[in-house]
C-alpha cells in the first residue's frame, strides 16, 4: 500500500463513489434483512393458490380443462352433484322421481337459492340451463337422440322426457366434466353454445367472481347470499360454508416456483406439483403434501380421425410398441403412487365402472410385432409422427419424449410440438389435421361410461365406432346393476380392441399446502368451502 495519504483534488470522483457504493450496499443488506419477514397483510383473509396455467374460461358447463373445473366449482353449482363417495345427489334439485318405465324425470328444485346477481332461481332458469347442457355437453350427445323434451311444470318443478330409458342421465348431469350448471335463464339463452364471457359468470355457489385478469390471476369473493344445503354429504355437495373471505388463484407456470412460494409465504396452496417432488415434499415438515384423493388416469391421445392412426393396425401396433411400465416410471413419479399398473378407464375401487376386460392387450409389449403392424399400416421412416405436447404439465412433456424415443427405436421419426396448455387444447380441436398423438388425463372415478370422455363424439381424436355405439346403448338400456356391469365389460373390451386411446397408468395429482390451511377436503380440484386459514406462525 502506498505511504502517501490520499489527497483530494478537484474533480477526484473515485473517493465519493466508494462511499456511495458502500452506503448502497449497506442499505441493500438492511432491506434484505428486513424483507425476510412475511408481508404485513392479515393472512387469514385471503387464500392464495398457485396454479400452473391460465384457466382461460370459467365456464364449467362448456370448458373441460381441469384448470376451469378446479376453480369454477366454487362459483357454480350443478343440478345434481357428486358426494364424497362419487354418488350423484341432488344439489340445486330437491330429489327426483322416475316414472313411465324410467323415461320421465320429474325434478323439483330448491326454493331458497339466489344467483350472484341477486335474482332468485326458478324452474325457468333450470329449463334454460338444461337446454344449454343438452347442446354443449359431450356426454349429453350420447343420450340426446332419445330426448323428447324439457319443460317447466310449475315455478319450482321441471320435467325431462326420453323415448327410452337413459341410465346415465342423472350421473351425467352430475359429471365432474361439463355438468349441468344452473345459470340465469337470460344468460343461458344469450350464451347458447358459446363460452360464457367473464361478465356472464353468474352462479349460485359460495363464492362469486370478483376479477379475472387473464394470464395472471382469478379473484373470488365470498357470496353473502349463499344458501347452503344442510346434509353432510361431502364431495361437491352437501353443507358448504365459505369461511375464507377471499380466494385468489394465481398463475405460476414454473413448478419449482409453485413449490417454493409455499416456503416463502407467497401463497398457501400449490397445485399440480411434479410427482418427482413427492419425496421432497413429504420430507418437508413445514408443508403437507396432498396427493389428490380422486386421481386421474394418464392417456396417450390418438388421432383416429385423420392421419396415420386412422388405421386400426397402426393403433394396435402403437400399443404393442409402448412399454407402459417405462412410461409410468418416467412420468408418474415414485412407484408407490401408481402401483398396481392399470390402463383401464376406471380405478379398481370404482367397482361399478371397473372392468378387467382387455388387460392382456394393455400389458402387451412386443416391438417386433409393433414394427410389423405399423409398417403394414403404412407408417414408416417416411411418415414423421407429430406429437402435440406442453410444458405446463411436466408429465405430458416427459410422456412425449419417451414415446418419441420408442418410435425412433423402430425407425419411425417423431416431432414434438410444444405449446402452453390452453393453446395445445385449442389446437387439438381446431386443427385436427396438425397432430397425430397427444396427451391427456381423465378422472379415474366416474359415475357412468358416458363420462369416459374419449368416447363422446366431440372429443379430440375423432373416434367413432358402431361397435362402441352399440355397447353404450346396451348400457343405457340396462335395467339393473348386473346388466349394467355386463355392458361395462363390453365397453372396456371394445376399447382395447379398437384402441382409440391408450391408458398408461394412475396419475396422482400432487398438491401441497402450508399449515395455515385447515379443514380442506381435498376431494377433486380446489373447492375451498368449509376450509379456513389459521394465522401464520410468527416463529419459524
Amino acid at each position, binding site marked *: 500500500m*502506498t505511504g*502517501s*495519504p*490520499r*489527497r*483530494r*483534488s*478537484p*474533480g*477526484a*470522483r*473515485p473517493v465519493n*463513489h*466508494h462511499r*456511495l*457504493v458502500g452506503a*448502497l450496499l449497506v442499505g*441493500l443488506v438492511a*432491506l*434484505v434483512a*428486513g*424483507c*425476510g419477514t412475511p*408481508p*404485513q397483510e392479515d393472512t387469514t383473509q385471503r387464500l392464495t393458490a398457485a396454479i400452473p396455467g391460465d384457466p*382461460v*374460461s370459467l365456464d364449467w358447463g*362448456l*370448458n373441460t380443462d381441469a384448470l376451469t373445473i378446479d376453480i369454477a366449482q366454487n362459483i357454480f353449482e350443478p343440478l345434481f352433484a357428486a358426494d364424497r363417495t362419487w354418488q350423484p345427489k341432488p344439489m340445486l334439485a330437491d330429489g327426483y322421481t322416475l316414472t313411465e318405465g324410467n323415461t320421465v324425470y320429474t325434478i323439483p328444485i330448491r326454493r331458497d337459492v339466489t344467483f350472484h346477481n341477486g335474482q332468485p332461481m326458478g324452474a325457468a332458469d333450470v329449463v334454460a340451463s338444461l337446454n344449454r347442457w343438452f347442446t*354443449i355437453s359431450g356426454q349429453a350427445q350420447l343420450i340426446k337422440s332419445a330426448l323428447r323434451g324439457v319443460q317447466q311444470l310449475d315455478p319450482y318443478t321441471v320435467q325431462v322426457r326420453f323415448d327410452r330409458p337413459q341410465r346415465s342421465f342423472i350421473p351425467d348431469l352430475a359429471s365432474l366434466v361439463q355438468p349441468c350448471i344452473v345459470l340465469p335463464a337470460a344468460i343461458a339463452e344469450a350464451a347458447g*353454445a*358459446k*363460452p360464457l364471457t367473464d361478465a356472464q359468470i353468474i352462479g349460485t355457489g359460495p363464492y362469486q367472481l370478483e376479477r379475472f385478469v*387473464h*394470464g*395472471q390471476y382469478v379473484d373470488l369473493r365470498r357470496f353473502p347470499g349463499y344458501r347452503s344445503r344442510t346434509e353432510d354429504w361431502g364431495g361437491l355437495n352437501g353443507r358448504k360454508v365459505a369461511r375464507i373471505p377471499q380466494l385468489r388463484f394465481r398463475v*405460476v*407456470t*414454473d413448478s*419449482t*416456483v409453485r413449490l*417454493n*412460494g409455499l*416456503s*416463502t409465504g*407467497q401463497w398457501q396452496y400449490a397445485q399440480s406439483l411434479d410427482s418427482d417432488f413427492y419425496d421432497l415434499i413429504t420430507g418437508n415438515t413445514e408443508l403437507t403434501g396432498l396427493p389428490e384423493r380422486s386421481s386421474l388416469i394418464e392417456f396417450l391421445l390418438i388421432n383416429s380421425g385423420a392421419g396415420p392412426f386412422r388405421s386400426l393396425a397402426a393403433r394396435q401396433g402403437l400399443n404393442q410398441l409402448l412399454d407402459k411400465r417405462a412410461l409410468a416410471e418416467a412420468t408418474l413419479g415414485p412407484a408407490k403412487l401408481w402401483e398396481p399398473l392399470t390402463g383401464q378407464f376406471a380405478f379398481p375401487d370404482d367397482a361399478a365402472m371397473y372392468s378387467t376386460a382387455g388387460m392382456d392387450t394393455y400389458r402387451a409389449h412386443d416391438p417386433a410385432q409393433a414394427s410389423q403392424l405399423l409398417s403394414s399400416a403404412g407408417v414408416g421412416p417416411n411418415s414423421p409422427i407429430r406429437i402435440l405436447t406442453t410444458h405446463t404439465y411436466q408429465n405430458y412433456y416427459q410422456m412425449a419424449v419417451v414415446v418419441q424415443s420408442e418410435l425412433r427405436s423402430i425407425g419411425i421419426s417423431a416431432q414434438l410440438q410444444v*405449446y*402452453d396448455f*390452453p*393453446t395445445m*387444447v*385449442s389446437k*387439438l*380441436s*381446431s386443427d385436427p389435421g396438425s397432430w397425430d398423438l397427444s396427451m391427456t388425463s381423465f378422472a379415474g372415478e366416474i359415475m357412468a361410461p358416458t363420462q369416459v370422455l374419449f368416447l363422446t363424439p*366431440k372429443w*379430440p381424436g375423432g373416434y367413432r365406432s358402431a361397435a362402441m355405439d352399440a355397447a353404450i346403448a346396451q348400457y343405457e338400456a340396462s335395467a339393473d346393476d348386473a346388466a349394467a356391469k355386463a355392458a361395462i365389460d363390453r365397453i372396456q373390451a371394445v376399447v382395447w380392441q379398437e384402441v382409440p386411446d391408450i391408458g398408461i397408468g394412475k396419475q396422482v395429482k400432487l398438491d401441497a399446502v402450508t399449515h395455515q390451511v385447515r379443514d380442506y377436503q381435498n376431494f377433486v380440484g380446489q373447492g375451498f368451502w368449509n376450509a379456513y386459514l389459521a394465522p401464520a406462525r410468527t416463529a419459524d
Partner: protein
Amino acid sequence: MSHVIFRRGRDLVITLLLVGTLMFFVVHLLPGNPAIAMLGSYATEDQVRQLTHALGLDQPLLSQYGLWLGHVVKGNLGDSIGFQQPVTTVLAEHLGPTALLAVASTVISLVVSVPLAAYTAARPGSWWTRVLTPLSVFGIAVPNFWLALVLIIVFGVALRVLPIAGYVSPLTDLPSAVSHLILPVVVLVAGQAALFVRTLRESMLGELLALYPRTARAKGASERVVILGQLLPNALIPLLTVVGTSLGTLLGGIVIVENVFVIPGFGALLFQAINSRDYPLVEGITLAIALGYVLINLVVDLLYTAIDPRVRIR
C-alpha cells in the same frame, strides 16, 4: 441543435414505419386464426366466421395494412384480443415492471461500474484488478438464464431468504417490492455492469494513451488522482453511448428475467401475445419497444452533443 433534432426525428419516424410494417407482415403471416384462439375449442364455424369478419381478418392483407396504418398514425393501436381492452391500456399496465427493471439495473450498473473501472485503470497491478478483469469477461459470458437459476437455487431454495418469483408494485408495498426485485436485478446488473466496466476501461485507457507521455513525470499517488480527474469526464462519454446501445441486450435480458422470475412486464406480455396469436398486441409491443429503444438512443445522442461540442452528428 434543432436541426439535429429534426433530422433524428425524421429518421425515427422512418425507422418506426419500417419496423411496424415488418412486424405487421410477419405477424399476419403467422399460422393460426386468432378468432379460433379467442373463441376456444368449442366454437362453431359460424361463430368463427362472424368474429373473423368483425375483426376485419377476412379482408385482403394490403387493405388491412392500410387500415392499421391509418389507426396507428392517430395513436390507436387497436384492441388486444386476449385482454379485450385497448392495446395502449394493456401496454401501460405492463410498462411499470419492465421500466423499473431497466432503470434499476442501469442505475446500479453505472454506480457499480464507474468506480470499478476507475480502480482498474488507476491500479493496473493490484490483485483486485487482476481478479476484476476476468470477472468482467465472466459477467458478459455467463448466460443470464443460468445465473438466474443458480441464484434461485442459492438464495431461494437453499437459504430461503428471498422470494424467487413474482412482482409487487413499489407503490403498494416497498420492502416487498424490493425483495422481489433483488434477484432479477442482480442477474441484469451482472451482464450490464460487466459490459460497462469493459467499455469504460477501454475508453479510459484510450484517453490515457493520449495523456501518458506528459504525465509520466509525475509519479506516485498524484499521478493517479490527476489523471483520473482529467480522464474520467472524457472517458464517460462513450459510456453514455454504451448505455444507449446496451439497451438492446438489456431488453433481451429482461425478457428472460421476466420469464424466469414471473414478472408481468413487456417480455412476459410478448410471450403471451405470441402464444395466443394476439396480433394487435404483438404489433403494439414491438412498436413500443422499438420506439423506446430509438427514443433513448436519440436522447443519448443529444446528451452526447451537449456534453462534448467537439462531436458532430451527421
